[in-house]
């Protein structure tokens, strides 16, 4: 049984399709990376899985249930959480309150989960009473990922988690993503730092112009001369 299955998805914003038949599949606990040139529809493909982009044709299944065009707040309840690329924290809420909002639909005691997030990102514990808007870019990204972990998801969607970060933070975020994955959370991510991302991925998809171009293990994609030439700077 696959964790996530997208079959031949067509869709986009408004009337025009951006996705022209995208298919993806991943198993529980895998790291899958979507790469491709600008305008390939990488983020759109991810949003279509999460109900943020209208799927005109095709199907999305999560844990063997059809979730095509389901509203994001219902998908969240199924155990899939999403971290947008930008504006991914509540700036006037404290770090702690941001995490609480991630747990909004939980009715049980989630203090243990908050502690797990603080263990994963120790700087957040120090700054837990500070508004998230006052943090640095890297720390905001930690808050954003932490917020999405509050529901203990089975699948975490990350839209360019290292965009705009300094090299020090890029390495740190990738390392933490691997640790999150080690705890059994499936990771689907769109990433510009294709080399590093594919290096840690179980599998990767290369999208071009809203279509699947290649799919293979991360290692094989890195070794593929065509892929290397297209996105990895040779």
């Amino acid at each position: 049984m696959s964790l996530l299955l997208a079959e031949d998805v067509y869709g986009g914003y408004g009337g025009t399709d951006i996705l022209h038949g995208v298919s993806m599949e991943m198993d529980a606990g895998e790291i899958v990376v979507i790469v491709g040139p600008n305008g390939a529809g990488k983020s759109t493909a991810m949003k279509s899985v999460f109900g943020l982009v209208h799927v005109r044709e095709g199907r999305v299944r999560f844990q063997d249930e059809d979730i095509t065009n389901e509203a994001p707040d219902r998908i969240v309840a199924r155990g899939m959480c999403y971290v947008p690329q930008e504006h991914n924290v509540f700036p006037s809420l404290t770090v702690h309150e941001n995490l609480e909002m991630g747990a909004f639909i939980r009715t049980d005691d989630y203090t243990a989960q908050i502690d797990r997030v603080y263990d994963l990102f120790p700087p957040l514990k120090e700054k837990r009473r500070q508004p998230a808007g006052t943090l640095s870019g890297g720390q905001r990204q930690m808050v954003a990922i932490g917020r999405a972990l509050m529901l203990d998801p089975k699948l975490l969607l990350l839209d360019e988690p290292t965009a705009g970060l300094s090299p020090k933070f890029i390495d740190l975020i990738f390392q933490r993503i691997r640790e999150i994955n080690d705890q059994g959370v499936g990771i689907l991510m769109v990433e510009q730092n294709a080399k590093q991302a594919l290096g840690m991925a179980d599998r990767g998809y290369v999208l071009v112009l809203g279509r699947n171009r290649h799919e293979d293990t991360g290692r094989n994609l890195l070794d593929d001369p065509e892929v290397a030439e297209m996105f990895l700077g040779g």
Partner: protein
Amino acid sequence: MIDIVQLLIYGIVLGSIIALGAIGVSLIFGILRFAHFAHGDLMTLGAYFALVGVAGMNLPMFFAFLLAIAATAAVSIGIDRVLYRRLRRSHPIILLISSVGVALMLRSLVQMIWGPDNKIYQAGVQMPWIVGGLRFKPDWVMIVGGAAALMILLHLFLQRTRLGKAMRAMSDNADLARVSGIDTEKVVIWTWLIAGVLAAAAGIFLGMDTRLHPIMGWKLLLPVFAAAIFGGIGKPYGAIVGALIIGIAQEMSTLVISPAYKPAVAFALMVLMLIWRPTGLFRGKVL
């Protein structure tokens, strides 16, 4: 000197009333991103609901107050369910204009039911207390105390409760609130409930301080918006500070210019703030 202190007291009373309206306007803007022009008439409606309790049912003022805030909250949620909810995806200007329509409907309704004349809650003149040459009306204690109590309750709600935090979160970033799984429609309903309660309280306090009239709330709308914008629209705490500044400035202005220009003082302060710092005192949203 004693005149200035007396005007300061008037200003705090007026500012407390304006603040209750301005908080609602600010909350609604923060959550739904439109300027709610029916807010003044919602205040009027609240004031008349209390009149039903006091004059019609012979209830003590406190119970009439509770009845009126509950009824006004129900009406404001009802208006949202019937009208504004359908326009949720429209341009904010369309929502704004529809709220002008609601304002006219509410005002006409009040006029139809209660007539166009002045009304008062209690007949007879309230004797002011005179302390050190300063005049205090007993009602003012209730107005300022009641407004302060409501603001403290709102503060506790926003800072301590799960729903209050969700309200602040949605005001920060509605899309992120949605993808976090926050039930945004529930937050919207609570926003209307709170805005309705505070508007009714503002209307009742205004009626206690002066008298009831079908355009009493409409006339207060300019200072209410000026206060919300002055403080930074979308920021309820800014609305409180903005309202006190505008209330006090309006009263103080009577030292130098005719009281007829009081609304102009509110308007001028708002314009100056927009020139100096368009996001307002507390860095709210840009209109």
